[in-house]
């Protein structure tokens, strides 16, 4: 069995353990915290008797261990249950929201990577120069600013003042893909900018480590063109470190989407989770967090497998 298959199998088993742990912890937490979907549905005028009656009608009165076992059993069969509020299955709710979050994540990751990696490389090559110092300061500023503040500032200027982008939402009813993507530009910038700063800084550090190595000095001494030295020799050896931070960034973007989707009123998975927590839509909370934890583990696994592809030494 080759290294890739070995790692995939080992990590696959670990993934199941992680997801079981996450499912159990989430189940426990949401049933411990106060609040009740029946109470949310009925509103503040409801009495305890009203809430109890609706809980019974919604089937929320089964003993917790029974609910837990039922939840786990259904999850194994890939049945995440039925939302208490949306009149659709949790799976359908997630699938209907996933494209928005996926588009946002890809746009933000693309922005962060396409800008962060080349600027990080340039910054390392011009170490100590004015470009490097300017980039360092801007990167620290971008990494320090909270994404919701960036979002609100972008709205103020680019949406309200200059009317270049919509303030919020995913487009009017019947809008096409281009309109949807247009509405994601500002959110992608808001959530991508701090991550771009992180990728930039780590790329710079990784490149600086490599640029001092003997083989890079040898490549220069052989008279190779500077671009060849940087791309074929230096960056090729720094890319595993860059890959690590890109993988971590994508994971972080999924979490960051929660705040950004709320600020921009986007109908993504993050917004779904926030609404479900506020409404105590238990099946959606459990199902969404289970799926997200699975995605996190898969991204980590993909990153590890890519290491093997990029660095044959690791296959031993």
């Amino acid at each position: 069995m080759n290294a890739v298959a070995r790692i995939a199998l080992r990590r696959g088993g670990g993934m199941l353990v992680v997801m079981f742990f996450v499912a159990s912890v989430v189940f426990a937490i949401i049933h411990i915290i106060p609040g009740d979907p029946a109470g949310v549905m009925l509103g503040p005028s409801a009495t305890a008797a009203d809430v109890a009656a609706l809980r019974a009608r919604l089937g929320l009165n089964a003993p917790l261990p029974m609910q837990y076992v039922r939840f786990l059993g259904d999850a194994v069969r890939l049945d995440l249950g039925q939302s208490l509020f949306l009149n659709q299955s949790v799976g359908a709710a997630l699938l209907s929201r996933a494209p928005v979050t996926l588009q946002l994540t890809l746009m933000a990751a693309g922005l962060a990577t396409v800008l962060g990696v080349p600027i990080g490389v340039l910054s390392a090559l011009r170490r100590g120069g004015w470009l490097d110092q300017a980039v360092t300061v801007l990167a620290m500023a971008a990494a320090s600013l909270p994404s919701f503040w960036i979002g609100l500032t972008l709205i103020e200027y680019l949406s309200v003042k200059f009317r270049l982008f919509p303030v919020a939402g995913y487009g009017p009813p019947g809008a096409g893909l281009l309109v949807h993507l247009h509405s994601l530009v500002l959110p992608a910038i808001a959530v991508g900018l701090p991550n771009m700063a992180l990728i930039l800084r780590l790329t710079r550090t990784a490149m600086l480590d490599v640029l001092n190595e003997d083989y890079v000095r040898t490549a220069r001494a052989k008279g190779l063109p500077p671009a060849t030295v940087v791309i074929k020799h230096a960056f090729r050896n720094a890319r595993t470190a860059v890959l690590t931070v890109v993988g971590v960034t994508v994971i972080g973007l999924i979490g960051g989407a929660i705040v950004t989707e709320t600020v921009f009123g986007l109908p993504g998975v993050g917004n779904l989770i926030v609404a479900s927590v506020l409404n105590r839509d238990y099946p959606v909370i459990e199902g969404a967090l289970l799926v997200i934890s699975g995605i996190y583990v898969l991204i980590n696994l993909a990153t590890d497998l890519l290491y093997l592809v990029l660095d044959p030494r690791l296959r031993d």
Partner: protein
Amino acid sequence: MITRRSLLASTAGATALGARLASVRAAPDPASGPLNIAVIFDPPGLDPTVNAVDLVSTITENVFDTLYAYDANWQPAPLLAAGPAAIADGGRTVTIPLRQGVPFSDGTMMSSADVVASLRRWLKLSSRGQLVAPILDAIEAPAADKVVFRLKSPYPALMGLLAFNSGTAIVMPKAKAEAAMDGPIARIEDIVGTGPYRIAERRPAQFILLDRSEHFVPSPMPPSGYAGARTPASSQLSFIPVPNVNTRLQGLISGQYDAGMGLSTDNYGQIEHTPSLVPVITKPGGWLFLVMNTKQGLTANPLIRQAVQAALDNEAIMLAAMGSPQFYELGASLYPGWSPYHSDAGAALFNRKDPAEAKKLLAQANYKGEPFRILTSQQYDYIYKAALVAMQNLQAAGFKVDLVLMDWASVMSRRFDPAIWEGFVTFHAFVPEPMLITILSPAYPGWWDTPDKRQALQVFSTATSQEVRSQAWSKLQNLLMEEAPTIQLGEYFELLAHQKTVSGVPAVPLTPFWAAHKG
């Protein structure tokens, strides 16, 4: 039982509602595009009978009609009913005539059987309907053009409950009412009413789109408040959830939204100075209450509650909560001057801001420094600020106060446990019928249930003339002030705004949008 004649004979003048609605005329314009209305959150459902949440009522009052609705004078007026109810048998028999030829949005015609099935559902599932259920013998449809309530005892508040658009007595087709007898209406296709609009599409977290109902037949009565002809002025209404209040405001300023609800009162100045926008302050307002636990613990002692009442500075609380005197009013009376329930009973006990008096009462109560736990949430900014100032007032009077912070769903749940709190701050929407005030129910957290209260409530709930009702309410309000189970902190008003190019948005709570249009 109150009849329309006796109400009309009252000396209540034209109300703020009437003045605000006087200029609102539906101007049907087939060319008017969708009206985009930004709202605070995605509603937890679209069933106003079960979901007694203001936003659900605001959206669905465009879809469902009721037998009666509140007119410009805040009196129940016919909507699906053909006229006032006929009262007989000492108030035990209430016969409601029905309009004929009223279609549902699916094209089927409303019948008395539909009304009976809908009311049975309301009696079972609505917190308002459940007030009536214990005294109901039967509800029947003896003919196609009437329904009859047979009551065990007179219930003067019945018309008010039927007219109120929260926990609403909606009318829907019999088959759909019977299919949803056990819980909220689940499918969009089953949300079928006789109103000017129908729900065309709901995309969670994106929009709730209402189309003008092609079958709609308006009431023959002229528009008055929520009653009378509800002629749809826009071809479509789109309610768009925008949870972030700043985003909602920016969307209005940029022109993306035609109207925006639930705006922060802190933004009033900015809205006023934005040439394209019109701010709207809705009145009458709701009440901010500090509800106290009379069932057990520290506040089961009336002296402690009276000490709280003496200590509070209502002006400071409401100013902190609402940000500007434009957005609140102070007064002992729960009801404004134009209401038959306006009363100054107990006024001497209101807003005393007297920590010395509070300390005396605490000494009499032998207070030993037990914590006064106030449940509150930052999810509603004005509630949190009110709780903060109340805490300071109480501390100045010698109370040891713990502010227990949690999200709103937790507050709603935790308030049912009398062991863990002494007070919680909450909002209560304006209700024109006092029997709808939740704190009067002994089952409502706070659990106010003394012999004097029971007797006063019994007198009020069975009084059949308006004069006797008003006097009985005055006594009940006085008792509320003396026993202080709940402190009314003040009346608060809400802020919404719309584009200058939009008209037909009345400045009333649960703002109806059927008459709103662009141009």
